[in-house]
């Protein structure tokens, strides 16, 4: 029994190692443009996977994930511009602020139930948008705030490896969380809240914790993204961005570890191909996401997983 488990873990490690090794190569053969697409995809991997941590694993729908990434970006960007703080430190301050705001929002709403969290986080992102566009003497509003990058010598390759390292770190933390005891309580809360709370799990504390961790991850991802683009605009915390992240998770497969990663790459690459048709990609992704959540709620990963299992059985 233990042997079989070990074997499976070993196989898993091999597969993961293979993909990580594969991920080291793109800078050697991709053009600058496609390297950029890969970097943006890695940003979405961080966003989608951390959103999936709360939505897929604890069943809470937050609409403030993009807003938290915006907070990470603006806090770090403004610290760099006005106080000259290094972005390497700034992103962690941004992450901390996002975590604190996440904790506050989570503390306020989660005890009231899922609907309240969704409503309040939606309100929060709308308010953040209003503040950022109106306080333009500080944020430069819709014009965008120009911020310094991480490296003195601009190179997409360095950014690619930076994003890759952080994305892998975030994924490792998420993997560790969902396979730890905490992950078990997450799933217990998701499956049957009443049963979980009567077997001694503090369901509210578990949810607030998950929400805070996920907000912090969004803040970190946003900070990285802002300093990579070197221009922070209100598009980062917009509901449109939130929708993209949500669509990536829903299309890839909610509640699966691989699903959001696949979803991020699929949608980001697809949107590069249909960019020439203008803004229709939002409409198209929306329709796909609606179809998937209606007919295949487990997403692409769920459908593929079933196929594979059947093929192997």
């Amino acid at each position, binding site marked *: 029994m233990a042997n079989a488990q070990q074997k499976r873990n070993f196989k898993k490690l091999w597969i993961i190692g293979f993909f990580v090794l594969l991920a080291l190569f793109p800078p050697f053969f991709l053009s600058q443009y496609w390297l950029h697409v890969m970097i943006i995809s890695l940003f979405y991997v961080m966003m989608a996977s951390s959103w999936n941590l709360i939505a897929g694993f604890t069943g809470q729908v937050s609409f403030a994930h993009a807003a938290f990434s915006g907070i990470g970006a603006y806090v770090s960007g403004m610290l760099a511009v006005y106080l000259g703080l290094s972005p390497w430190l700034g992103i962690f301050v941004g992450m901390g602020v996002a975590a604190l705001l996440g904790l506050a929002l989570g503390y306020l709403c989660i005890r*009231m139930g899922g609907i309240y969290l969704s409503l309040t986080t939606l309100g929060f992102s709308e308010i953040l948008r209003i503040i950022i566009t109106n306080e333009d003497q500080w944020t430069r509003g819709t014009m965008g705030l120009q911020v310094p990058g991480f490296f003195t010598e601009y190179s997409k390759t360095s950014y690619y490896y930076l994003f890759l390292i952080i994305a892998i770190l975030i994924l490792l933390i998420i993997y560790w969380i969902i396979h730890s005891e905490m992950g078990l309580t997450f799933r217990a809360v998701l499956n049957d809240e009443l049963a979980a709370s009567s077997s001694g799990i503090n369901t509210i504390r578990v949810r607030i914790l998950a929400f805070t961790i996920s907000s912090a991850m969004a803040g970190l991802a946003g900070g990285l993204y802002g300093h990579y683009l070197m221009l922070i605009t209100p598009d980062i915390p917009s509901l*449109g961005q939130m929708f993209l992240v949500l669509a990536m998770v829903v299309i890839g497969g909610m509640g699966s570890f691989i699903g959001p990663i696949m979803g991020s790459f699929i949608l980001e690459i697809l949107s590069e191909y249909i960019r020439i048709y203008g803004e229709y990609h939002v409409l198209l992704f929306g329709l796909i996401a609606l179809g998937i959540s209606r007919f295949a709620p487990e997403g692409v990963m769920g459908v593929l997983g079933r196929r594979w299992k059947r093929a192997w059985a």
Partner: protein
Amino acid sequence: MSEFLMYLTNGMVMGVINAISAIGVSLIVGIMRVVNFAHGELYIFAGYFSYHLSTSLGVPPLIAMPLSVFFIFLVGIGMERTLIRPTYGNEMYSLIITFVLSIVLQNAALLIFGPYPNKPPNLVSGATNIFGLYHYGNQRLLTFFISIGILLFIFYLIKKTWFGKSIRAVSQDRGMASLVGVDHFRVNMLSFGLGAALAGAAGVVIAPIFPVTPTGSSAISLNAFVVVVLGGMGSLKGCVVGGLLLGMIENLGAAYISTMYRHIFGFIILILVLVFRPWGIFGQKTQ
């Protein structure tokens, strides 16, 4: 003084419209435990329908208005049948589906109607002198009275008719209601349609005063949600009181504090309610 009274009147006009829109959300939440994030988009669509029916097709405005509301009612029924019904019992999926739907509809509205506000024709013109204090636009006064009429109709529908009784029965105890012969699928469908129609009604009555735009829809949904939480989830009385309060606070706040931050007042109210009285003004404290 007269200025203050005018802002207050503006607040009341907005307040009754807020109330109509919020009752639409509240009905759906109360009966199905579903928050319709596409509420603001339905509101916008109704405004545009009313504009295009009356201006582009030449339908008299008095017919165009109820016709648009009826269209939105049908859209609501279609939404419930195709997308919402399979999600019953899974709160998370209904939240995700209606959010995605709101983005889809918002982009569809941008595509179909364009980003510009369109104003349906006024029903009346001129202004009336109110108690010799200030002049107030007749169109706004008419909107106010039409809205009150709609509110009275809703209360009659829910408190006095058979349909209203079955709605209340289902929202109190779904299982028991179906035991005594209420077809809850039908009730769900009709009340989702009614909720959508109320978003439509609010959009239709407001469009001649404040033309709607596709990008304004999330603020509209949020306003309705704030009112529902402020009044207490599932309470109709709460929607009216909450709607009026929000309308007046927003208008006075915009006039005396900051116009740019008009929509922030609603959010501040939401946070205050969540901190001090999470069950709202008329809601029941459950825990």
